[in-house]
């Protein structure tokens, strides 16, 4: 009985490790509310980065599209990477911004 439980705990720990490593300095506890806050902070930070990259690169030439299907977010980001000579990191930031 212990073996599957150990596997499960190990898997959970492994899955949570990258997230914890990103937020270890700001989140001392692992309560549910803190975890939710961490998730919000991560998403907000990503969106802010993406918004900034979008404003600095895409908006240099054109206005922000008023909305489009999330199914083409990756295509839009790849197009912008080529057209605007974006770095790989900027492409991923825009992708997160377009399709959070």
């Amino acid at each position: 009985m212990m073996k599957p439980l150990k596997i499960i705990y190990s898997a959970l720990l492994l899955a949570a490790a990258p997230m914890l490593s990103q937020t270890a300095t700001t989140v001392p506890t692992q309560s549910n509310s803190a975890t939710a806050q961490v998730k919000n902070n991560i998403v907000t930070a990503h969106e802010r980065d993406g918004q900034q990259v979008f404003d600095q690169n895409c908006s240099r030439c054109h206005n922000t599209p008023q909305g489009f299907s999330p199914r083409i977010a990756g295509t839009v980001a790849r197009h912008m990477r080529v057209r605007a000579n974006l770095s790989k990191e900027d492409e991923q930031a825009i992708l997160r911004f377009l399709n959070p």
Partner: protein
Amino acid sequence: MQCFSNSKYVKPLRRIGTALSVFWISFFVGPLIAQTTPLISGGAGFLTSTTAGATTYQPIAVPVLEAPIGQHLLIESRGNLVETVSPSGGGQGGYNHSLFLSLAYLQADYIATPHLTVVGGYFLTPFGTYNERLTPIWIGNLDAPLIFSIGTMVSGAGTGGMLRGNAFSSDKISLSYAAYFSAGSTNKEFTSTRSAGGQMYAYFPEKRLEVGASYGRLLDGKQTNSVGGHVWWEPAKVPLKVRSEYAHGAHSQGYWVETDYRLSQIHGAESFFGRLEPIFRIQQTFRESAPDRTDFLPSANTQRTDFQLAYHLPHEVRVNATYARQFSSTGNFNIWETSVVYRFLFPAWKGK
């Protein structure tokens, strides 16, 4: 195996498995599986232009296709469908009309490394800023600048290959480059001139300032060089864009400076006044050779000022009204233009 068949453990296991899947998908895999369905984009519009008293009408459609293949490849193309209705002239009444179909570009982009994209096919010539960035009708506000054909090798496109990408990027500076070689082509759909060139520009994110330089060499017949530079600035706290470009070629040299101010500080970008965008541009060219119709440059020293009011309606519709005055020893005249432009962007096919 026996323990997994026990329902006491199966239910929690399923829940944990589901939670883990959601966790991984939302935090790590999610961005990677963002949809890359091919898209159709572009613009459609109706333009009128009255130059020195003669009015032409142009219904226009500019479709764009973007089709990613795998993780590294992108096929993209843009076409132009323009119907021009203009006065017959020569003392005759009535109008003539002509249909113009063309490809702006049809290219394959292979993202080889984080810093290098290899482009092959029929591509827009990377010289200055207008050709690659501002030619789409849903982006560019004003007519092509007078110096447009300097460095863009007349047709504005090349048939061959190009290397481009981001050489270096940090919080302080981003360096980008493009270098191309084009073969000569007289094919109706892929007109290009044998040429080579490229550009490099630096963008300073904190200052929101871009400075760049371009070079092009015509390799057909009499080999000539074109050089150019551009400066773009967009202050972060004000919805202002300042764009400028200078180019020098064998036949002419000149510059343009454009300011663009969206009145979004008045009750926001969606307010009545916030949708308004006045644009002003001044440009000059200086002729350095005898007039030559094939270079598509003004035949004499020319100055021109453009003033436009653009109004951004909901649903990606923009209405523009422009007045321009051109001064030259060959004649001074007014240009009045109006346009309605609709921008579209949707997946190429239906999906989940």
